[in-house]
């Protein structure tokens, strides 16, 4: 069990996985169900167990359409899609080497770069 990853995911998603009462309505409603190795309810359960590595290694995280049907239908307000998103983000963060650090940004700026892109970049990489 990876405690750090679990806490990180709970933190970034803001989801309280303990609210889940295992009804499976999220997976019952999921349009990508057949595409996924792990299904929305499994994401919630596996994060609760701290079984993060398997989720991070699975293609399932890219199969989620972020349609939020699971969030809309969950009777307990657990928001599984946010958990999936948080796992996705965790994977991106692990790839640190491929990414810029905030310090790299000034050197890359040029005059034609839209302001909004600069702000977005700062937000994204200074997380």
């Amino acid at each position, binding site marked *: 069990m990876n405690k750090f990853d679990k806490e990180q995911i709970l933190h970034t998603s803001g989801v309280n996985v303990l609210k889940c009462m295992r009804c499976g309505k999220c*997976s019952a*409603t999921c349009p990508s169900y057949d595409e996924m190795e792990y299904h929305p309810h*499994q994401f919630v359960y596996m994060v609760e167990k701290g079984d993060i590595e398997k989720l991070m290694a699975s293609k399932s995280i890219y199969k989620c359409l972020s349609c939020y049907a699971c969030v809309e239908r969950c009777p*307990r*307000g657990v928001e599984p899609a946010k958990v999936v998103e948080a796992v996705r983000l965790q994977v991106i963060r692990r790839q640190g080497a491929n990414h810029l650090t905030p310090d790299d940004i000034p050197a890359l700026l040029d005059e034609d770069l839209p302001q909004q892109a600069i702000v977005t970049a700062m937000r994204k990489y200074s997380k």
Partner: protein
Amino acid sequence: MQRIGVFVCWCGSNIAATVDVSAVSEALSHEPGVVFSTNYQYMCSEAGQNLIKDAVREHKLTGVVICSCSPRMHEMTFRKAVASTGLNPYMVEIANIREQCSWIHKDKAAATEKAIILGRAAIAKVHLNAPLTAGQSPVTKRALVIGGGIAGIQTALDIADAGFEVDIVEKQPTIGGKMTQIDKTFPTLDCAACILTPKMVDCAQNEKINIFAYSEVEEVKGFVGNFHVKINKKARYVDTTKCTGCGECTEKCPMKKIPNEFNLGLDNRRAIYIPFAQAVPKVATIDPDHCNMLKNGKCGLCAKVCSAGAIDYKQKDETIEREYGAIVVATGYNPIKLDQYDEFAYSQSPDVVSSLEFERLTNAAGPTGGTLLRPSDGKHPHTLVFVQCVGSRCSQEGKGKSYCSKICCMYTAKHAMLTREKYPDTEVYVFYIDVRSPGKNYDEFYRRAVEDYGVHYVKGMVGKVTPRSDGKLMVQASDLLAGEQMHIEADMVVLAAAIEPDKSARPLATMLTASMDTNDFFTEAHAKLRPVESPTAGIFLSGACQGPKDIPDTVAQAGAAASKVIGLLCKDQLTCNPCVAHADQLMCNGCSSCEKVCPYGAITYEDKEFRMPDRTTAIRRVASVNEAVCQGCGACTVACPSGAMDLKGFSNSQIMAEVDAICKM
């Protein structure tokens, strides 16, 4: 100045081992007002009590302080002893030198010092005690039951059986409630009508029971033993004394297309109707919203065909005023509206029905005569999907209910079982989150559905129901144990809707000043020890108005509520707690702060004329406390900025005298 006697108890060695009792009685004998002070081995013994009684008489004591065990133990004992001498029992104060002194401390000097201080505090309080007399209020020996479902019926029958008059107020044209709409009952599968209708008839025939059907409670005043209630008896436009219930009018009425509430709109009724064949009272009612005669004065067919001449288009609502000693709330429940759950296509397909609608569809007296047919095309369904927990255990704001509705697991098992029994060619699926079957023979019942009847119980929820153009319902669901998503082509989907308290409960609670929880269920006086009483004296709770309940629980609670009512009505006089709040009207501002914090509605306001210092008179709004209702918590005394409100037996000055005595060392 009071003449106070101090009695220090040794309690064998319980007190005497750690407290120097003679030092205590010696020290306290020097306190102002103390004319007698002694100590004795067991004050609560007969000899000890006689010692107190003799001293009261001999020394003409006006106040008694007993340094002994906790007042929770022997306060009543000593009060009774003192009362037997003619001294007011509320002139007794206890200093708790056992549980809160000798048993706590090991050091004798410290414990003795503390015992003396506690004794002084009690003496200081007694100085300000005043004789209190417990008020008496008479009891009107009649009960009101609000709601005529199985809860109300059972309560009324039990109360009437004990010989007291009972009125039932029911807002529908007939008593019977939800149970009349149910087909069979779990876990024994006897037919609901067969066990309910005899009770309805009993009610009608019992001379102690008076049924006000098609009526609603409009106003409640008064307090325990003395409620004054206004009941609005709605106009039926039919003289109930003449109507024979023959039903001729309901055959002839030309307004045929009115959704029939009794069958939940699955078929139609006329503008003049009798809800069902076994209705009590069995009289016709005209629906004023749809009757042509009442709306525009054209028709009058029913009056023409009525051989009894019972039709009266000029009838008006009638207000009945009655006195009651006790009120039982039995307002029951309703299934929630399902329009928030569009994922189940409830509003898109007539073949997606609620469980109560399913009851009607399988009931011999229902729209299909008891044959299970799809509402859309009247065909026999082959695949049925039952979904549990629709709206129950749902914490989404404004959508469902956070609680478990308790009855759905069992009735769903019943529906599934009965469907398989009657139509063995069907496939029946039940989607559950948990199956909750704690109850006598309940789990066995559910297991029978699985094991004997082959109902497919699937752990998981249905996510989506999509009506297809060929009339099939595509059900997409989770099978969590197998870890797969299921797709079922169903003919019918049955939703086990959460249940909620009837909408009439909230305004009624306000009228009764009875408290409710956030879900609008009535709260009981104590969750475990007083489950059928409301915290408001004289108000009792029966059935699902207090929380989701099945029929056996409802009937049990109805009987319990009745026994509490009988216990109250048996008394000729109610003795009130004399330690109640009292408003000094000269100082009262009439600001209503106290009224707002009173949990019992014991405070009312009146306009009173007062002489002002400048010899003029002025009319002021002032508070008065109903001593029969006040329970003496004292919330009002602190809410009152002017100090006009005080609590007898625990007055501001008494408590401050105790504070002073404790702090003075």
